[in-house]
């Protein structure tokens, strides 16, 4: 199987800060690959290097078979990019932005006329195509950027948080389109996202924390590393209860909803653990069963296992709050 994207020891420094540190990964042709990580984790920097906009400080990367540093021109011909930040010309109309893109990618006029029509219809901007982008809402701009990234039918598509700011219907429509596109054209899609449910739908997920790769696998395999279900117990004295369960030989950590306990089979263990806590003098105020999600993997990797040995509930909470906010 050929690799669409290959990175070896990819690193990037900004002054003294190492934003990406020795990243190695490979993405197969036709794969839908998600890069996950907290704010400042290095996702955009990684995308910048893979799309030839940033020179790697160390390491190499190949995209569509070409070296990003030595053959940037060839790489650019094969990729489409939707950036995290704004990248439209506000003074031009929606249509003119697409025309600009088509011309600069050297598409024949007849082809780009038709593709513009199709894509404007897809992102539901056909009626407003002759308005300057200045008049558009954030979500409309995002839709236009997506349409633009698809204009020249790239072989590898890079999307940096593509669905931020989109309403649920548009998000779904966009995903439906991406899946269809992948089936029809076999495009490789490399995206970053903060929506964990979006990452669930990807073939493989890489978690990038402080510029290093914390995990890389299929969503199912990543969740399997958590070893089963997670039970959350709300108790008054979290610290004492934690010690108690720890003494039982359980994997316990403090989570946003109280104590989080990893168990093999959640529903069956609830009565037993509640009884144990109550015996120890802890009144259980609430119990919550969660099947492992990517979010748990994420919190485990970026909030505890990677940073500090001891679980730090406050940090986990902060990280979670941050992620929650960035969803908006």
């Amino acid at each position, binding site marked *: 199987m050929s690799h669409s994207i290959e990175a070896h020891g990819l690193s990037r420094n900004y002054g003294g800060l190492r934003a990406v540190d020795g990243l190695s990964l490979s993405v197969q042709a036709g794969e839908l690959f998600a890069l996950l990580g907290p704010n400042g984790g290095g996702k955009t920097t990684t995308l910048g290097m893979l799309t030839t906009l940033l020179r790697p400080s160390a390491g190499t990367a190949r995209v569509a078979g070409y070296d990003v540093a030595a053959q940037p021109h060839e790489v650019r011909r094969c990729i489409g990019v939707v950036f995290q930040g704004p990248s439209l*010309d506000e003074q031009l109309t929606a249509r003119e932005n697409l025309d600009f893109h088509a011309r600069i990618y050297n598409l024949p006029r007849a082809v780009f006329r038709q593709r513009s029509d199709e894509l404007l219809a897809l992102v539901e901007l056909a009626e407003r195509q002759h308005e300057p982008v200045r008049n558009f809402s954030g979500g409309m701009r995002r839709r236009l950027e997506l349409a633009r990234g698809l204009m020249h039918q790239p072989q590898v598509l890079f999307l940096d948080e593509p669905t931020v700011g989109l309403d649920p219907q548009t998000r779904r429509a966009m995903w439906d389109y991406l899946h269809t596109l992948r089936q029809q054209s076999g495009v490789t899609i490399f995206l970053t996202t903060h929506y964990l449910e979006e990452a669930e739908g990807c073939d493989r997920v890489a978690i990038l924390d402080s510029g290093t790769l914390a995990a890389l696998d299929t969503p199912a395999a990543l969740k399997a590393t958590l070893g089963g279900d997670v039970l959350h117990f709300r108790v008054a004295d979290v610290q004492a209860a934690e010690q108690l369960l720890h003494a039982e030989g359980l994997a316990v950590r403090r989570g946003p909803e109280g104590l989080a306990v990893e168990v093999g089979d959640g529903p069956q263990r609830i009565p037993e653990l509640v009884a144990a806590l109550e015996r120890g003098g802890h009144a259980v105020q609430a119990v919550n069963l969660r099947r492992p999600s990517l979010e748990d993997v994420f919190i485990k990797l970026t909030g505890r296992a990677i940073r500090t040995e001891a679980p730090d509930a406050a940090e986990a909470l902060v990280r979670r709050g941050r992620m929650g906010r960035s969803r908006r």
Partner: protein
Amino acid sequence: MSAFYTIWLRDLTRFLRNRSRIFTSLAQPLLYLAIFGTGLSSLLSGTASLGGVSFTAFVYPGVIGLTIMFTALFTAISVVYDREAGFLKEVLVSPASRLAVALGKVASGATIALLQGLLTLPLAWLLGLPLTLGQVVQLAGIMAVLAAACTALGLLVSTRLRGIEGYNVIINFLMMPLFLLSGALFPLAGLPLWMDVLVRINPMAYATDALRQVALAGAAQPGFLAASRLHPVAVDVLVLLGFFVLFLVPAVRAFSKQE
């Protein structure tokens, strides 16, 4: 080729769409003429001998040059704006050759500045300088070379600039000195050595010199023009072309290398 045209077309579309900008950059030379011409000529009345033309007419070629420099620099500096607004990424990630993009930028800046410069020509008649077709053609040629040189300079500066502070740098440390030391406001004869040196490394001085010789050709005494000029028109234009290449090569290189 397609990238070159695309960049050029975008800048022209933006320029033509922005009516107020066209208007203000037309009003600007008028304002300068009124201020410099009226204000300074009252100061100089009687003392200055300007070959038989009014001080306002004497200043007029310099104001054409200023209009062109202003427009060209600001079109080139749109690169800084594009970087701030994120649009530059769209261009830099495309397969368009950076050379074509940079040259497209120079071409659009030069075109727009030339258009603005041509719009100042009707003022000549108001100032009592009726131009022949030959003069208009020569003026347009000088303006085109100046416009290209200034755009290349603007591009060179703007690939190194980040953010809006860049504008202040350009205005205070580039535009004002270039204009004031161009000989637009005073004849260049008999300057102290240090100022003479500064004038001779200033592209605007050569442009003003050439524009003045052509624009005042019919109106001023030939002896005055010959005595107060830096060089013959052809030499001025060659020097300007030299400046153009001098700015263009590093500008294209810097533009191609930027991240």
